[in-house]
């Protein structure tokens, strides 16, 4: 029998359905709440994350790391139980946990709104109006949590195999439908689906171990497993964790091999504000993923009018990824007071930074105030940069002035630093393949083909002309001049077409 995963915003609905189904399948039913409680006991501050989502506060770097650890903990826990036999697991959006495993049925349950409302009125002893407000607010919080934890819209049916609406269907009928589905051949365990689950389990265990250990707890790591081979990738800025990774993972059982690799280089993205939904962000991420590089963000603020108000020219953000407190038991959840991190400049970086951590491409961030010289100063001398991208700067200026100043900044930096410097709007042209590049490739290829066809069909007259057999000195000089002009043109066309083909094939 498969593993059945039930997702719903209403805890009671999913619990009752899971229990009913588990009885039919003669297997245990496990809730998100049980697993999350174990995660809390293991030192993952789940409540802190939940409250950050409730208050819609900007997710911070440390929270993103905790999230990665929580997801790993839950995945490992579900896989471990599923390895022992059939299971029904239920949670808010747990369908995202075992995405690639074939013997998992992902069910979305839409609760009966009236039943839910009546239950809230009864349990919380509140008026209908208050109960409606509570449900609306809670559903909105859960949607925000699902977006924070999994980056998807919880209600999107396309992520599920089956959606059941309990408004018109009894719990018993719904359970019977899922049970019927669980008997279907397409959801039974296979060697391939078991292998996929084992890989997910192994990667999750590795990520959990690394997050739990003081030596690697503050690292932003991307952990994957393929056929028992665990690969841990870290960004160049986090080279200090390299030695500890294999040591920490030495206790991981079931791994055939452990490979720890550093992303080869960093892309420096200079901008005033960083929007994870912007075109530039998508393009930079695309290039970084293709190159195996990290993305370092430099928030460049305009020079301050009053020097007294200036932060230091290069103000590295406070290190938030400090190791997780040794024992919450000793403090009972009350930490020592310390200097509050002055992170007001940090808020515009937070969204993009969290997304980069989520994608395993975060290469560090810093804030500076000034112009070109400050960018040069901000470059880490021990870091190899593959590219510098100048994003949105000079936001307070007119668009035309902004474009001019951005180009001037790119020109200034190109003359002073080694890595190539480009502006965000030219990223697509230079490194990615889109419609425009396709048109250009067609044009270049057509020109190359025309030249080749003309050359091949007119070999005799061309040889005579370039061999200087048809005339005197004038014709020889002319032949040399034509040759000098034609060769670079052909090389340009041919080189351009080849470069675009390679870019298209993502082979650079």
């Amino acid at each position, binding site marked *: 029998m498969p593993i059945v995963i039930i997702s719903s915003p209403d805890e009671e609905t999913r619990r009752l359905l899971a229990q009913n189904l588990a009885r039919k399948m003669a297997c245990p039913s496990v809730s998100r709440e049980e697993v999350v409680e174990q995660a809390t006991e293991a030192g993952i501050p789940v409540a*802190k994350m939940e*409250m950050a989502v409730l208050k819609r506060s900007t997710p911070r770097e440390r929270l993103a790391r905790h999230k990665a650890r929580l997801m790993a903990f839950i995945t490992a826990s579900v896989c471990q139980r599923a390895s022992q036999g059939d299971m029904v697991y239920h949670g808010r959006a747990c369908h995202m946990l075992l995405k690639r495993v074939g013997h998992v049925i992902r069910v979305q349950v839409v609760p009966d709104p009236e039943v839910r409302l009546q239950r809230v009125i009864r349990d*919380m002893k509140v008026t209908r109006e208050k109960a409606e407000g509570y449900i609306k607010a809670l559903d909105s919080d859960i949607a925000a949590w699902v977006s924070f934890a999994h980056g998807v819209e919880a209600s999107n049916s396309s992520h599920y195999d089956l959606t059941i609406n309990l408004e018109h269907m009894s719990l018993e009928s719904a359970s019977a439908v899922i049970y019927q589905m669980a008997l279907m051949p397409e959801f039974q365990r296979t060697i391939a689906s078991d292998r996929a689950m084992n890989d997910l389990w192994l990667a999750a265990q590795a990520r959990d171990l690394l997050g739990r250990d003081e030596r690697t707890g503050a690292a932003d790591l991307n952990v994957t497993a393929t056929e028992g081979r665990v690969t841990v990738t870290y960004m160049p800025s986090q080279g200090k964790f390299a030695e500890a990774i294999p040591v920490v993972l030495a206790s991981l059982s079931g791994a055939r091999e452990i490979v720890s690799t550093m992303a080869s280089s960093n892309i420096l993205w200079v901008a005033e504000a960083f929007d994870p939904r912007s075109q530039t962000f998508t393009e930079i991420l695309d290039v970084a993923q293709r190159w195996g590089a990290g993305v370092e963000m430099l928030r460049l603020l305009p020079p301050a009018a009053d020097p007294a108000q200036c932060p230091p020219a290069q103000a590295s953000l406070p290190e938030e990824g400090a190791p997780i407190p040794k024992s919450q038991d000793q403090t009972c959840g*009350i930490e020592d*007071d310390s200097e509050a991190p002055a992170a007001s400049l940090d808020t515009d970086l937070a969204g993009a930074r969290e997304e980069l951590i989520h994608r395993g491409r975060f290469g560090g961030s810093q804030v500076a105030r000034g112009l070109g010289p400050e960018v040069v100063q901000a470059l880490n001398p021990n870091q190899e940069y593959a590219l510098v991208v100048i994003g949105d700067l000079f936001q307070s200026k007119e668009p035309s002035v902004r474009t001019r100043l951005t180009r001037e900044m790119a020109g200034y930096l190109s003359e002073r630093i080694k890595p190539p410097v480009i502006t965000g709007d030219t990223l697509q042209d230079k490194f990615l393949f889109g419609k425009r590049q396709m048109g250009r490739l067609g044009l270049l290829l057509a020109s190359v083909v025309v030249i080749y066809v003309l050359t091949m069909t007119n070999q005799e007259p061309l040889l005579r002309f370039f061999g200087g057999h048809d005339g005197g000195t004038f014709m020889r000089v002319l032949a040399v001049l034509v040759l000098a002009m034609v060769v670079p043109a052909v090389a340009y066309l041919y080189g351009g077409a080849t470069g675009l083909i390679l870019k298209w094939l993502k082979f650079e």
Partner: protein
Amino acid sequence: MTEQLKVLILDDEPTVGKRLGPALCKMGCQTETFVDPTEALQRLEQTEFDVVVTDIRMEKLDGIQVLERVLAKSPRTKVVVISGYATLEVARQALAKGAFDLLAKPFKPADLREVIVRAAQSLGLALTA
């Protein structure tokens, strides 16, 4: 400030009171700490507190019940809920029942001081963290 802010701290884990009590005293609050919810409620019957800081998960009585009882007796009291196991469901329930704010453990005393300052302001009292 003419009068001290009266704060009751309730957590079945004695360390919490021991750590939070002095931190709030430093900012000029008059604090009383309890580990037993029943005793805390008895005290609340005798005197009115400006702020009650209570854990959610306790053996005899949970924090939501304490919240209900406090607000039933003294609607002006600000109740701050603290918990290491707070979920969205519990938090929303606490807010729907009139909790002033929620703090998830682990937190620093400074975080609580900030909430206490806001609570004092909403009571029309001046206090600085």
